[in-house]
């Protein structure tokens, strides 16, 4: 029996299990491969995660980046890719590189750099899940890191101002979404009928864009014009994630119904006892 594995990551909202793309990728892969992960979402307590989020803790081993976590899960025999051919495995690496180069800058910008989005949605959400007083500092740091990354990787000449860089990264992101849509076509997942690592990564990057309600949403509007990608996200959410939400609600309902039935039975028995006594009393009388 494998050692119990615990995943520490950011929680979710707007129908998603997590808002953080990398956490979402790991959670999706765990669902696809059937790995039994206990998910601990970061909350207001002082138990800070030990490394960059998401972090997988299994006995004494602490692993922190999505690629490494997925490698670890594969070594523990939870492999979602065993049916892929060598060429498909190579395609997976290539498309993940495409996502990181073309889509990630725009995603970071939408969440952390775009002023309206950051101030009205991202900062309050993350601040509410971090303990005070770190909640005053950490979101700002994450925002600065995101801007730094965008400028260092995409911001060289001939793009000299932030607006030009923003225009370029959104153009690249929309092209990337178009390419993904063409590649997905009409099939259910990227490599046939079973989801694989690539599906986990694409889902991790697309679902936050798709579901989170921001004031400035140009990427979301573009994504909504690609119905096969929207259908892809919805399918994974309903098949692999809603079950837990629905199951919990259903269980609650059953519990309530059972309690109600029990109370009714108790009440009935009590009444019958009383009535019986009354009758016997009456009979006695």
């Amino acid at each position: 029996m494998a050692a119990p594995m615990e995943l520490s990551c950011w929680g979710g909202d707007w129908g998603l299990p997590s808002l953080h793309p990398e956490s979402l990728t790991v959670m999706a892969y765990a669902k696809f491969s059937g790995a039994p992960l206990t998910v601990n979402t970061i909350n207001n307590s002082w138990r800070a995660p030990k490394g960059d989020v998401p972090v997988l803790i299994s006995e004494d081993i602490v692993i922190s980046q999505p690629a490494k976590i997925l490698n670890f899960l594969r070594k523990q025999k939870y492999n979602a890719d065993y049916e892929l051919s060598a060429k498909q495995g190579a395609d997976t690496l290539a498309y993940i590189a495409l996502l990181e180069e073309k889509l990630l800058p725009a995603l970071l910008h939408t969440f952390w750099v775009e002023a309206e989005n950051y101030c009205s949605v991202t900062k309050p959400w993350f601040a509410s899940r971090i303990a005070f007083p770190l909640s005053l500092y950490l979101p700002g740091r994450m925002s600065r890191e995101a801007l730094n990354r965008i400028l260092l990787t995409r911001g060289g000449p001939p793009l000299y101002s932030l607006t030009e860089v923003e225009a370029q990264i959104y153009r690249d992101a929309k092209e990337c979404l178009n390419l993904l849509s063409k590649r997905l076509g009409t099939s259910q997942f990227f490599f046939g009928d079973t989801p694989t690592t690539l599906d986990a990564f694409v889902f991790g990057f697309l679902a936050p864009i798709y579901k989170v309600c921001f004031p400035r949403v140009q990427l979301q509007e573009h994504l909504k014009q690609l119905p096969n990608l929207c259908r892809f996200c919805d399918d994974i959410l309903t098949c692999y994630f809603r079950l837990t939400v629905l199951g919990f609600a259903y269980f609650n309902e059953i519990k309530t119904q059972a309690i109600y039935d029990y109370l009714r039975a108790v009440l009935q028995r009590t009444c019958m006892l009383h009535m019986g006594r009354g009758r016997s009393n009456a009979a006695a009388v």
Partner: protein
Amino acid sequence: MPVMERTGRKSAPATEPWPENAALYQQLKEEQILLSDNASSLAVQAFLQMCNLPVRVVCRANAEYMSPSGKVPFIHVGNQVVSELGPIVQFVKAKGHSLSDGLDEVQKAEMKAYMELVNNMLLTAELYLQWCDDVTVEEITHPRYGSPYPWPLNRILSYQKQWEVRRKMKAIGWAGKTLEQVLEDVDQCCQALSQRLGTQPYFFNKQPTELDALVFGHLFTILTTQLTTDELSEKVKNYSNLTAFCRRIEQQYFEGHDKDSSTTVAARSAKRSLLR
């Protein structure tokens, strides 16, 4: 129907034909040019050869500063100056030459994905090796990078560039990697390229595309550049179809030409020939 947006910069007017005196600028090839810049330059040269567009290679010490984007190589065609493989491919396409017209949409998506893979992994690994590995930096990079300039300018320029590259590595999360991890990433990338190539002559079977040019540029440079250790080239040599691929492109597009271009390719900062 998905909304397609025009990507990239404004393309050059397609009215002028390709001139005879088109020039490609790079740094000095014997003393100054580094592994990553050499790879990029060779990729562009291969691409232009594949399109049958003549270009002469001009070596200048300040090529990096002349370039509009700060990166080499750049081409000077008519009165246009375009740098880096991506924009050059689009520029050439606007002039009516394209290698990837025969591909369907899914293949084009795949081609772009693999080009990003090479840029993301191979190019970043080359930059890491050149600028973040202390041994290589001391023995090769610092002496070469500022060699055309007098002291202390040569040291200042190379330290400045090193600081810039290390900042970028930190931002993308590569600063914490060890050399072994970087070499493993290179191995993974080569494995993916090897599996994609299979037994075909080019990545998209019969005709070479810009992906072939890019992969050739990087792999040929890695195979023929002498560094402090052989580990990087050993990783590529493990995949025989990749070395055969490089040899094939070298023979087809570089050796059949006049002496100038063949010496351009063969006389690297390298000391070894591929056909050994």
